[in-house]
């Protein structure tokens, strides 16, 4: 770890503190205030902002390139220069961890975005139109839910062979929307019954317009919460796939394939597996904590827990 790295890390810490403090001081409306009243919201947000900034500024906080191999220094325990040690081909674990954050957080977030969009649209369509649209879409969802997720993804990866990061993200998204669509459908069905929907319809608005403009925003709370909690699951799934050798391809680091790479050396060089595992746990913990707080904030019924 060089002086520049330390300075950069301190700067990121200060930036994180400032951002979170700023958000706390001017929360947007009631929901924001309720959000920050939740005991773990601030902690979760601090971790997330910090990790996201480290991921974005990875080149600034890493003394080595993530692919750089120092072949005289394999499986070296943590030192001042390599604060988290080196891996089996002499790559700096800290540097890979920082770059891996890009992949792991990116795949999780974008994958969830795909899933939420798709799940939201399908759920809204099914809930609003009902009838055979609903029956057809929900049977598809039933099928999707009746195949275990990891089989589905493993089979899909076998189907398309070598997947890039982008394709993997889309794939995770495409197999992750079933549950979301059910939640949204239920919300939409209840929103549809409310008087203002009838009012809008009476004014002659087109069905799709009603769904997009009026029904979806009203069920967005469910959508946001399911997304926040889903990113963590997405990350865990990506890690599991990489562990089975079907996820992110080398030399690109992801937290999952770092665990897989270090598995052989678990007894002799535990740091190569331990730190990426803890990183996943920390990130998913923060996501779950934030998701909890969001749910409480957006759903006043259960607020104040």
């Amino acid at each position, binding site marked *: 770890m060089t002086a520049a790295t330390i300075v950069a890390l301190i700067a990121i810490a200060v930036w994180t503190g400032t951002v979170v403090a700023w958000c706390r001081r001017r929360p947007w409306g009631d929901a924001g205030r309720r959000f920050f009243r939740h005991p773990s919201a601030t902690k979760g947000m601090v971790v997330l902002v910090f990790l996201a900034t480290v991921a974005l500024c990875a080149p600034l906080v890493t003394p080595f390139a993530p692919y750089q191999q120092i072949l005289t220094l394999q499986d070296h325990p943590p030192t001042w220069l390599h604060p988290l040690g080196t891996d089996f081909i002499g790559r700096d674990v800290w540097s890979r961890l920082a770059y891996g954050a890009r992949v792991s957080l990116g795949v999780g977030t974008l994958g969830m975005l795909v899933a939420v969009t798709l799940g939201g649209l399908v759920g809204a369509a099914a809930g609003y139109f009902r009838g055979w649209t609903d029956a057809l879409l929900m049977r598809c969802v039933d099928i999707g839910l009746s195949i275990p997720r990891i*089989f589905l993804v493993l089979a899909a990866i*076998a189907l398309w062979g070598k997947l890039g990061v982008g394709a993997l993200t889309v794939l995770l998204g495409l197999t992750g929307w079933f549950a979301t669509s059910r939640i949204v459908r239920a919300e939409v069905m209840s929103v549809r019954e409310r008087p203002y929907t009838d009012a809008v319809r009476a004014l002659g608005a087109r069905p799709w317009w009603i769904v997009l403009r009026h029904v979806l925003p009203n069920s967005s709370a469910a959508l946001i919460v399911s997304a926040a909690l889903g990113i963590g699951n997405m990350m*865990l799934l990506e890690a599991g796939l990489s*562990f089975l050798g079907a996820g992110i391809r080398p030399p690109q680091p992801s937290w999952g394939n770092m665990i897989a790479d270090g598995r052989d050396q678990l007894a002799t060089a535990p740091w190569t597996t331990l730190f990426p595992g803890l990183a996943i746990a920390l990130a998913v*913990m923060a996501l779950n904590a934030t998701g909890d707080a969001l749910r409480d904030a957006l759903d006043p019924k259960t607020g104040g827990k």
Partner: protein
Amino acid sequence: MLAWLLRRIAASLAIVFVTVSLTFFAIHLAPGRPFMPPDERPMNPIVVHRLEQIYGLDRPLAVQYVRYFGALARGEMGESFSQRRPVAHAIADAVPNTLLLTATALVIDFTLGILIGLFQAARARRRSDVALANVTLFFYSLPTFWLALVLQLVCALWLGWFPTGGPTDPVMHASLPLLGRLGDRLYHLVLPALTLGLVGAGGTARFQRAALLEALGHDYIRTARAKGLAESAVLVRHAWRDALLPVISLAGVALPFLLTGAVLIETVFSWPGLGKLAADAISARDYPLVLGTTLLATCAVVLGSLVADLLTVAADPRVRVTA
């Protein structure tokens, strides 16, 4: 009612049919071919061709598809390529192992989860609650396979308390008395079941705590308190009864997991269950075995939801059967 039931069964069969068909085409069209030995001995292309003839893979896909469902209708799931024996036998060998592992894991999951949740709700927002909340959140957020690796390293390799994997000790098992065999099984079960159970318990505890706190906010609880009941009695006798229902529904969701198993855990602990069977079948392109496991998993899910619906109808006459 009967008409509803018949329609529902027909829909379930249709779902199974579509799922298996999709899997059929997906796995056959996937790149890669069966009969690839897992080690470095190259296969002679002539032998591969002969094997394709034997298993009918040289026929057009449509013919294979019709044949597969024809055989299925007669109750045959075909011969596994990688195990050189009927798929039914391979699955029958894996089911008990998976059931043992997942059922034990679910028991650990719910016992531990419910107890922790109860304890936390009793001391809500006190220091012990916050500490436990952090612990449960931590376990809930862990990659299970990572926890498995760490537990294996620490408890099996370093401390030598438990075996590193496998469901029994092949040397001693056969010569042990009945109780000894049972003990041997349990002894091998501890680490894999604990890994799955701990991660699950993290989630269940959080769920149970939330459900309890919600129940505690209800009016009848206030009534109970007003009557002067002890806080512990209020919690256990009144609130818990109410808050157990959502947890039981959570268990319902977890039921298919009994059969699909846990691919990653079974891999780490060399546990010959259905999850590992399916993952191995996919990587060996063992088409009949992939289809067989998919069929089983789908049936489990579909059957589960059918039973759940039936129970709902039976329990709540307000639910209209026309839905």
